[in-house]
């Protein structure tokens, strides 16, 4: 062996470093070994998540729509399982959890065996009492209180929450969801998940089996949770429930009431509906069957379905005629003799007797089909397509709800490339002129269009959210700017269309004379659209009322219910009259309840929220879960 300075230095360094390690190991394992053995046996030294309270949802008067209610939950710590067979038996007998499901849950969380798995939620209190005693045999199980969601009434806009699934967990890996987390699955719960959720806190747990602090760290440092923001909607619970009341029982369809001034939706009713609360528990097979019946109660008919609009579409074609100069206010087109011959086909008007030769206003009043058969055939289809698109009837409206559908209006390319039609398009165009054929709209698109007409042509994105509440107040415009644009109309066109839809509800022979709202000027249009779903036509009515300024626009739609003037207009009339009868109450500003006030905010009722001053300092919040027992 060679002796040299370098080797000596290395040997000494090696000796010193290893001596340090051996010494430290001796201290840790031999001297303090039994202490750490105790700590290890307590199994409680870990980081615990403090779940943030999810934001609630309120109507425009701060009345609850979605609230948090306490619930009893059962948790499993898989790392403490002693006897899988016995546990599986116990869970199957008392909670109906199948052994294979248990195995799956445990396998999924095999890298986090110390973290609790939420096995069952919303357990009845009696069950908790009855089983508490038996839980002593299973140290891996524990009951704790958490929260669950309560939905005030059946509806299609709140949506509901559910346990995060594996796909969502992967997708939002960066967002720090726990495997036990609830996440918005549909509706507003999903659309505003980011606002509602908040951020979980965490704390370091250092207690032994007796609950005494182990004092591994000097301080009990924790990160407080940031609770979710509550949402205030434009929905008015009174109006919503009144709409629900007057909607004919057993019919399928929807009602949309929109505040013309703001574009906020006051009532959002799709029938048949379902109770989101059923998703908060294990769904029984009967409930599941009912939810998936052919009535489709889960379907939101306002934005998730498209229908032929029928005659409510006529003002769009009419306005294009006026804009291109094909017609003016007094132009009379081909006379209606109960129909119109186009090529070798006879296109019927709904009236067998015929309306004679009409101007645009009267064509709307009587809803004459022939006028529009003739009008659209005097125009270029692609120009009409552009016009329909600019009126907001092709693209989805952008309402703050997920999975909204687009409408559809064909252009020449569609007929040539998709349908492979070589012949003239006159017949197809005729049908489009009366809102039939390939054209499809969601009821919300129709409602939004008529609101724009009421605003003298200003189109505003429909929306439900007004502002957030609680930790900080953010208005809808700050969350996501509202889209606005003007309809491509001149003042003159606007005036003619106003006159036309005024005639529908007011002039003798108008199709919607059922509308009678004292103290207001009424406007509207009926529709009865033929469809492949059944023999009866789809019934439409959409219209609005104006006092000293435009108030609300109401759209009523019923699947296969017959004529719009007969079945839909009366429902709309009741809603208009209810609104006018309660207008002071509906418009009165509400006092913000204390629990929704932003820190430092006065209790005075305010219509427009004061500017936010202390967003940066969230209120101190208390943990929402009890520590493990």
């Amino acid at each position, binding site marked *: 062996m060679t002796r040299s300075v370098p080797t000596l230095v290395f040997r000494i360094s090696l000796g010193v470093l290893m001596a340090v390690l051996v010494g430290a190991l001796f201290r840790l394992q031999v001297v303090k070994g039994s202490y750490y053995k105790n700590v290890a046996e307590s199994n409680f030294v870990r980081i615990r998540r403090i779940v943030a309270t999810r934001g609630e949802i309120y109507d425009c008067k701060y009345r609850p729509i979605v609230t948090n209610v306490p619930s009893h939950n059962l948790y499993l710590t898989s790392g403490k399982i002693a*006897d899988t067979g016995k546990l599986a038996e116990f869970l199957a007998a008392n909670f109906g959890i199948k052994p294979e499901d248990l195995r799956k849950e445990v396998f999924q969380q095999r890298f986090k065996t110390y973290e609790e798995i939420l096995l069952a939620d919303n357990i009845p209190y009696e069950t908790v009492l009855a089983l508490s005693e038996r839980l002593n045999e299973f140290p891996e199980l524990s009951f704790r209180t958490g929260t669950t969601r309560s939905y005030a009434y059946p509806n299609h806009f709140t949506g509901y929450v559910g346990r995060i699934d594996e796909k969502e967990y992967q997708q939002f890996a960066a967002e720090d969801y726990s495997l036990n987390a609830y996440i918005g699955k549909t509706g507003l719960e999903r659309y505003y998940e980011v606002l509602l959720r908040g951020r979980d806190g965490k704390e370091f747990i250092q207690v032994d089996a007796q609950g005494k602090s182990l004092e591994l760290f000097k301080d009990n440092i924790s990160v407080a949770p940031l609770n979710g923001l509550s949402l205030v909607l434009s929905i008015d619970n009174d109006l919503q429930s009144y709409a629900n009341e007057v909607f004919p029982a057993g019919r399928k369809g929807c009602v949309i009431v929109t505040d013309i001034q703001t574009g906020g939706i006051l009532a959002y009713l799709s029938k048949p509906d379902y109770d989101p609360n059923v998703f908060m528990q294990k769904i029984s097979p009967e409930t599941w069957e009912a939810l998936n019946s052919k009535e489709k109660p889960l379907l939101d008919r306002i934005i998730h379905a498209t229908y032929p609009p029928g005659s409510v579409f006529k003002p769009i074609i009419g306005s294009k005629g006026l804009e291109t100069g094909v017609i003016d206010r007094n132009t009379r087109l081909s006379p209606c003799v109960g129909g119109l011959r186009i090529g070798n086909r006879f296109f019927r008007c709904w009236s067998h007797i015929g309306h004679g030769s009409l101007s645009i206003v009267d064509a709307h009043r009587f809803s004459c089909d022939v006028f529009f058969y003739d009008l659209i055939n005097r125009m270029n289809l692609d120009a009409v397509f552009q016009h329909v698109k600019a009126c907001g009837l092709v693209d989805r409206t952008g309402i703050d709800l997920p999975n909204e559908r687009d409408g559809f209006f064909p252009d020449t390319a569609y007929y040539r490339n998709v349908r492979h039609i070589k012949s003239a398009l006159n017949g197809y165009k005729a049908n489009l002129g009366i809102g039939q054929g390939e054209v499809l709209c969601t009821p919300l698109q129709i409602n939004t269009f008529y609101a724009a007409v009421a605003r003298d042509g200003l189109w505003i994105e429909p929306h439900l959210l007004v502002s957030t509440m609680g930790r900080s107040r953010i208005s809808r415009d700050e969350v996501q700017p509202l889209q606005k644009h003007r309809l491509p109309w001149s003042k003159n066109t606007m005036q003619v269309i106003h006159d036309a839809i005024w005639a529908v509800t007011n002039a003798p022979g108008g199709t919607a004379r059922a509308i009678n709202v004292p103290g207001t000027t009424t406007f509207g249009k009926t529709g009865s659209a033929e469809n492949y779903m059944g023999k009866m036509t789809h019934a439409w009515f959409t219209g609005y009322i104006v006092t000293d300024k435009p108030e609300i626009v109401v759209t009523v739609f019923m699947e296969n219910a017959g004529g719009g003037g007969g079945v839909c207009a009366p429902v709309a009339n009741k809603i208009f009259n209810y609104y006018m009868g309660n207008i002071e109450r509906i418009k009165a500003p509400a006092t913000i309840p204390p629990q929704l006030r932003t820190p430092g905010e006065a209790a005075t009722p305010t219509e427009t929220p004061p500017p936010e001053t202390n967003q940066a300092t969230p209120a101190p919040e208390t943990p929402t879960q009890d520590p493990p027992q």
Partner: protein
Amino acid sequence: MINRKKFDFALAAYLIILIVMGCVAIYSATTTTIGDYIHTENNWWKQIIFAAVSLGCAFLLLRLPMPIFELIVLPAFVLNLLLLIAVLFTPAVNGSHRWFSLGGLNYQPSESAKILTILMVARVISKQHLTEVRQIFYGLGITLVPILLILIEPDFGTTLVFFFSLLAMLVAAEVPLVYILLLISPVISIVSSLWWVAIVVWILLLLFLLLRAKLSWIAVSITGAINVFLALIMPVFWNGLKNYQQDRVLSFIDPMRDPLGAGYQIIQSKIAVGSGAIIGKGWLQGTQKNMNFLPEHHTDFIFSVIGEEFGFLGSLLLLFVFILFFQRLATAVGELKIKERKIAAAGILAYLMFQTFINVGMNIGLVPATGIPLPFISYGGSNLLINTLAVGVVLKYLNERGFMI
């Protein structure tokens, strides 16, 4: 070209024993027992495949003719530097750009940079007729390039390894120890600035040692001034930091300040190792391991599993094998007569020894958590390959002994 008489079987044997111990520990670390349900991830046989590949590569390295080996060091080093630049443009994983991912295999260019930098530095500072000062500056210059690139990633822990190997190589190059003292004196000045008494004692001691070594007055006064300045400026600099920046530095030095972050891992590791006590809980029986309090404990925290399951005796056994292994390497440094190879072997010894110390120290709460794996034991293919090749280089040098002298 493997000379049986000269081949160092002992060193190779220690290497294989360490790898086998690693596989045993990895098998246990990736096994989860829940009731009667036992699940083992497939990492352990992956590691066996990695080991076979690594040993195969080391074997090929031994067969490689020496001239070719010497020829490829420079191009490989340059290529590695380019890779260190390229890796900065990869998407960040946990906030840092360290890995290339190629079909499930991850490669860290900073791993191969360790061994290539050592070979490069050894080549340059072993040149004839270099003054000590030049040796130091050339060594520093070559080492700083990869260090700066790795700091950008950022990966602070890895850069420390480079410094320690550089020091060891300068020692092996027989640069007088007083120069090495000069080199590390700023670090000591910064540390001693925590307490004014320490500053005074340290500066006096430094001046005394420098004068004893008969350095010129100018050199001594410059060094003294720089160190005094550093010691005095540190508190000013420290107070200039924002609160959260101070917190970050303090938490790095003392992880126990941060129970929800680094401190959590250290305390869980300490509980695991401590609860192993003298004889341990037995293979596959670790309760702390089984609760998975530490994520990914088959990599950086593998020692916590060994400590828990095999206790003080098992830990000692592992450290004993490491000591034999490093002793053998230290002997090799003495036995190698060609200066370049001697210096390279010293660098390799220091780099493996430093990593072992830091990793075990981290597992028992002695040093900050830096993300340095335990050589030959921690799970990970590229790490095992580079470490094995490093030993392969020493084996190759030993095997070539006596050809030139």
